[in-house]
């Protein structure tokens, strides 16, 4: 999430547009496929998600975040996964308690 919100991401391929949630998060709309995604169709990155800005050593589409307790984890926006540093994979739709790291 760039501090200055440069708006390059506004340029989108045909049949794509963007929306902004009430909280200010940007998402992308594929009008043809009738789907939505956090990921920009060209760069593959999420824009203005509210999570920690992407560190350079993370693959495209991933972001770093912290739980309420301060444990670090990674979000894979592409596959909808939350991943803890030990590489344990958990379904993104659950909020079951998991082990921490560090």
């Amino acid at each position, binding site marked *: 999430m760039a*501090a*200055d*919100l440069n*708006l390059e991401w506004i340029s989108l391929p045909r049949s794509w547009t963007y*929306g*902004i*949630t*009430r*909280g*200010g*998060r940007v*998402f*992308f*709309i*594929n*009008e043809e496929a*009738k*789907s*939505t*995604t*956090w990921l920009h169709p060209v760069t593959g990155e999420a824009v*203005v998600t*509210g999570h920690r*800005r992407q560190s350079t050593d993370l693959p495209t589409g991933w972001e770093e975040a912290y*739980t*309420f*307790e301060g*444990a670090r*984890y990674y*979000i894979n926006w592409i596959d*909808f996964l*939350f991943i803890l540093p*030990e590489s344990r994979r*958990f379904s*993104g*739709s*659950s*909020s*079951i*308690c*998991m*082990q*921490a*790291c560090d």
Partner: protein
Amino acid sequence: MDSRIPYDDYPVVFLPAYENPPAWIPPHERVHHPDYNNELTQFLPRTITLKKPPGAQVIPDSDAHRAGLQEGDQVLAVNDVDFQDIEHSKAVEILKTAREISMRVRFFPYNYHRQKERTVH
């Protein structure tokens, strides 16, 4: 054989629920939808300048309010110093010692509400 702590001894954390983006809806339904009809400009960064009244330690809320600061604003930078990852004590020092404060802020209710959730016990 790795020397990591056995999983049973790790402290427990709760991962937040994954949040999907708003579901696709046809354009004619978007007009009054709270997640679809937002104007980008209200969420763009903006600069607010505040001056401490002579002899004062703090800037009054009314000044900040008059200058355009609102609930939900996120501070991106102060006097050209990045405030997004700054250490708390350093942030305080900058705010305390500066006579004039040029703040780069951005209205971002999503983060604001998440922070609010975190501080509720």
